[in-house]
Each structure stands twice: as C-alpha cells, then as structure tokens.
C-alpha cells in the first residue's frame, strides 16, 4: 500500500530515534506466540495426512497386493511415529481453529449476536457427527 510505505519512511529523517530490532526468536518469548507458531506449523502435518490419503487411494486403485503393501508400510515404526506426531498436530490444529471460529464468525440472530459457545459447539458437534459416520463405516466393514 503506497500510503503505508510512505509513512514508514519517516524514520530516516530522525536518526536519533531508537528502533529495536525484532529478534529472530520472538516467537519463543511468550507462550501465546509459540502456540501461534505451532498452529501454523500444524498445516504441514495436515498436508502430510492428505498425502497419506492420496497414497492410500492410489494403492486401493492398484489392487489388493498394492494395498497390503501400503498397509505394511503404514506399520513401520518410523511411519507410525510420524503419524502419531501428525495426529497430535492435526488435533491441535482443529481444536485451536474451532476455538478461534467465534472471532471470525459474527453470526446474528434476531438482531443479537449468537454466543461464542454456540459457534464453537456447532463446530465440535459437526466434527463428532462426521467422525461417527466414518467410524460406522469402519466398524461395518
């Protein structure tokens, strides 16, 4: 934005003002900042699960032998460990985003803002419902 760029230029003419540099490690200074960075990193693990899902679909399309090979790959200890870490981050991602949802969604009903708890609750309810449907498919087979 041209306006903002102009305004940040003013310091050049005041060399006596003191400006501190932001440390590279600023995100370690406070727990909320670290939590924010962890939440951002969690997107990598969300992407990892998408890759796993795509590999699974590919194995499925290549027949039973390829699929059992895929399942064996999943059972390797390093893969299990990686998936456990990924699961932790994906849950962290979901929980932190659900908790932030009321900030982004100002839903109004009959002129009044719907309480935060309802929006968070609806997100969790949808999560539980979809998980139940998935679980039902798994148990049935």
């Amino acid at each position, binding site marked *: *934005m041209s*306006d*903002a760029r102009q*305004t940040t230029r003013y310091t050049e003419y005041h060399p006596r003002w*003191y400006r501190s540099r*932001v440390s590279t490690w600023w995100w370690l200074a406070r727990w909320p*900042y670290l939590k924010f960075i962890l939440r951002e990193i969690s997107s990598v693990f969300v992407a990892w699960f998408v890759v796993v899902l795509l590999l699974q679909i590919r194995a499925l399309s290549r027949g039973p032998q390829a699929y059992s090979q895929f399942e064996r790959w999943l059972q390797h200890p390093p893969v299990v460990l990686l998936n456990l870490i990924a699961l932790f981050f994906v849950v962290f991602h979901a929980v932190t985003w659900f908790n932030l949802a009321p*900030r982004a969604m100002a839903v109004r009903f009959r*002129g009044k803002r719907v309480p935060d708890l309802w929006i968070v609750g609806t997100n969790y309810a949808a999560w539980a419902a979809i998980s139940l449907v998935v679980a039902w498919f798994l148990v049935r087979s």
Partner: protein
Amino acid sequence: MPETISLEVLRYSPERDTEPTFQRYDVPLNKDWVILDALNYIKDKVDGSLTFRWSCRMGICGSCGMMVNGEPKLTCATFLSNYAKEGRPVRVQPLRYFPVIRDLVVEVTDFMSKLQSVKPWLIRKEEKPTSEGEYLQTPDQLNRYKQFSMCINCVLCYAACPVYGLDPVFIGPAAIALAQRYNMDSRDEGAHERMDVLAQHEGIWGCTFVGECTKVCPKNVDPAGAIQQYKLTATIERFKSFLLPRGAK
C-alpha cells in the same frame, strides 16, 4: 508486604545515548497506586528528567500505554500491587515496535497516518441537507458496530502484534477495527472506498491471526475479530465481482 517496590525503567536520551539503558527506582508500594502513579512519583520526587506520556489517568485518553514486564498495558490501569508478589523489579519499557523518542515516549505517526488511510469517518454518497434532519439509527444498528467504536487509539494492539513488528507496512489491528466500525455503521456508505486500502496484502491479508491484539485491548474492542470478519466480507465481495454482472454488485 514490603513497603517499597523497585521499578526498572528504560531510559533513552537521543542527545546522549546510542542504546537505551535501564534505571532502577524504588517507590512506595501503595495499595491504590498504579504504575503511572509510581512514574509520577519518580518524576516529582526522584528524577525530573524521566519522560513519559499521560493525561486522563482513567483509561480514556490512551496516552499512557507502555510495556510492563513485557506486556503492553495502560499504566493508569495496572496496579503496582499486582507485581509485588513476584519479588523482582517491575520492568517498564516504551511500547514495542515503535521508534523511541525519549525514555518511555514513542513515535506513533505511523499509526496515525494508517488510521487516516482507512477513512475513519462517515462517508455518504450524497450528503442530505440539514433541513431534512439527522441520519437515524436504531439501537440494533448501533449495537452492530458499538464494540469497535470503543477504541481509544492507545496502540497497545500494535505493540502486541508480531506481524506489525516484522512487517511495519501492515495497517494493523486498531486501524482495521476502526475501519470496520464505520463499515458496519448503517449511516455509512464508504465501505467500497475503504476496501481499496483494507483488502490487500498490507491490509487484512497481512494478519495471520495471532490474536494477541484482542487479548491486550483495554477496551474489549476485539480487533482480531474485526479483521477475520472483514476477510470473510472481502472474499465474498471478490467472488461477487467475478460472478455478478456489473449492475448487480
């Protein structure tokens, strides 16, 4: 409880210093004293050269924002006794991410011009003559934006925002919240004009939703909420501009 409490106050003289230093002062630990009272005690009784901004002492003027033990606070609303139990000196520093002019005084022109760039006033396509009366508003319409109108421009939210620290061209929390205050006002017709400034990388899209601006706000304005809500509005508007014919926007 000890009778005194120590303050470590950042000192910086543009004439003498190249780097700021901390100076320690012992002040009486009065139960009803806030940090600002302690600073005024130092200025009156101990060291008249200590420089800081303040005015109303009651959380209205937004002048006395400082970092207290690393957190952005209005010093008129932060009690000394809250820090007495910690047993270490209370660190008082100027607001983070702003250039320091002297001691605890920071330069906020950057914020002021950003605020102006979002046009925080009622914009009408056509002003109606005064003879036709006021622009009326129902309590429900008032409630839609009232929370955002409580901002006192204390810039604590900027000092809490790592995005602003790392990328100073970011318009920042308070300016966007105040733009939303007018966008959501039923009397205003300037949302489109403000969008040019808001819906770009230095505007709302610079925000990564750290959420600390909302936590430190002494007036419960919720700038983080304002920004996320505007992201939704801007996205919808963008899709509309692609999908709808010109006349229907």
